[in-house]
């Protein structure tokens, strides 16, 4: 399933002019507050009718200003988790969820019981929305949208109000939806960690326009992107394969550049996945270091160096056939005499690969 979008719309003091293609999987819409993310998502849902343009989901045209097509919202079969949950105040949580399934398409999807367990909302079923806390509200809203078994799911910062452990509970389910049901998603988020884990494609909006777009791996290991994403969150995403699970709780994965030891993943041996390695979690060493607590040491070659405004340098390395990024100080770069072509060792702490950052491939 492929969403292609090309819209123009102007509001007083703000102009939207956005084109992108979102292939199967999850497309992350990323951008600062006020960049136009919600507006784009609303256009897909049909809640905002752009001045001009075209939006299509595979062969089904949702909107086309030239052909004068604008499919009504309720016929689009597009689920929407709103930034402001919008639960129905006159219905219990249970009725809100049931409402979601009322006009659901005949498609496989999670049951009410499954969703309750997953979102930890079973104890809230009899309550009315005004008796829920902020996070509870959002969880129910996610549940309601999933109950409608949509062709595509729009999520507008759905996890912003959730704590880390609830986030971690929900993310796998979104992944499963993406993979098993092939429900494509447009996912608005401020969190690179979420984006890196979930997204197949990243679209970066800046001031109503697409600043960058591309597959998540390329985007996150692109030196140009470091600026957009913020230095703290920059890092590469590598395809990997689970080789073995070890008795001491580590899983061994192979990447093109060698072996990585990570905290045990739930994936079966042989499964493919991807791991995210933050630039700042990589230490470079001239020689193979010894007596270190870090388990993962991969040989690599410097391919590019880019100095920022500060004291840092982003170093792009070829590691096998993939690229990884390392963020080091200029002082270290000079001390080690790093230049493109230089051979180094990338030291990566096993534990620095976030479980959240090991998604399915």
């Amino acid at each position, binding site marked *: 399933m492929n969403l292609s979008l090309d819209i123009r719309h102007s509001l007083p003091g703000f102009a939207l002019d956005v084109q992108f293609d979102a292939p199967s999987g999850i497309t992350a819409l990323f951008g600062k507050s006020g960049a136009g993310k919600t507006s784009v998502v609303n256009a897909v849902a049909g809640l905002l009718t752009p001045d001009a343009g075209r939006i299509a989901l595979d062969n089904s045209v949702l909107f086309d200003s030239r052909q004068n097509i604008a499919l009504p919202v309720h*016929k689009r079969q597009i689920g929407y988790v709103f930034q402001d949950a919008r639960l129905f105040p*006159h219905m219990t949580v249970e009725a809100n969820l049931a*409402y979601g399934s009322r006009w659901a398409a005949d498609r496989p999807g999670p049951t009410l019981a499954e969703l309750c367990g997953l979102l930890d909302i079973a104890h809230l079923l009899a309550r009315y929305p005004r008796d829920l806390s902020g996070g509870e509200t959002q969880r129910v809203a996610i549940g309601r949208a999933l109950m409608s078994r949509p062709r595509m799911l729009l999520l507008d910062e759905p996890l912003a109000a959730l704590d880390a452990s609830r986030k971690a509970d929900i993310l796998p389910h979104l992944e499963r939806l993406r993979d098993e049901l092939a429900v494509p998603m447009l996912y608005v988020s401020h969190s690179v960690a979420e984006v890196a884990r979930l997204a197949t494609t990243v679209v970066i909006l800046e001031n109503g326009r697409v600043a960058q777009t591309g597959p998540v791996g390329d985007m996150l290991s692109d030196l140009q992107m470091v600026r957009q994403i913020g230095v703290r969150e920059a890092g590469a995403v590598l395809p990997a394969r689970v080789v073995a699970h070890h008795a001491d709780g580590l899983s061994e994965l192979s990447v093109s550049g060698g072996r990585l030891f990570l905290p045990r993943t739930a994936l079966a041996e042989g499964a493919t996945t991807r791991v995210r390695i933050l630039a700042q979690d990589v230490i470079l060493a001239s020689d193979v270091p010894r007596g270190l607590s870090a388990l993962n040491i991969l040989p690599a070659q410097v391919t590019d160096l880019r100095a920022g405004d500060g004291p840092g340098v982003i170093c792009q390395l070829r590691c096998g056939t993939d690229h990884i990024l390392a963020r080091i100080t200029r002082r270290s770069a000079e001390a080690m005499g790093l230049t493109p072509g230089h051979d180094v060792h990338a030291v990566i702490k096993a534990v620095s690969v976030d479980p959240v950052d090991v998604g399915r491939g």
Partner: protein
Amino acid sequence: MTAWLGPDEWQAVALSLRVAVVATLISLPFGVAAAYALARWEFPGKQLFNGLIHLPLVLPPVVTGYLLLLAFGPQGPAGRFLEAAFGVSLAFRWTGAVLAAAIMAFPLMVRAIRLALETVDPKLESAAATLGAGPRQIFLTVTLPLLLPGLIAGAILAFAKAMGEFGATITFVSNIPGETQTLPSAVYAFLQVPGGEAAAMRLVIISVIVSMGALLASEMLARRVARK
């Protein structure tokens, strides 16, 4: 009790109740439709439509009744049409009293429903749309339930108004005992003769009890609905 009110008076009470209930029920769907159109749509002549609905509030009731008589009387164009097409005759019938009461109560009903409608957040309706509900279904499952307190208030207001309506009714359908003599018409007749005050007051008390009871019930109902 039968001694306290004569049979004619009991008949008037029963008729008034019937007229008010039927007028309220019949005008409810129209009231909702009109309120919806006014609250949510833009169309040419909207303000004219709005004005027309409010006309009975502004006109002296006698004038409204007279206009009804001219239009729906046996000689009136609408009256003739209804008679010919459906065999329905309104003038000097209790059905005419229903029409008069409904028309007089309509602006109050529409006002109340419209105000309630304007407070229903359209964001909730668009949320329902994304879940696959069509316009009609959204209306029935989201808008209408959220509207309910206002709807109840509007209906009861209309009922109370219909119970008390006099000027338009007596002018349109006269004051025929057993057919068109409503409670207020009976009160009027009593007030026209010396010494009729006591009988009039008895009727007024009944009317007040009924209307107040309805009002109170609506308050509690609306609260129950809203508290959910």
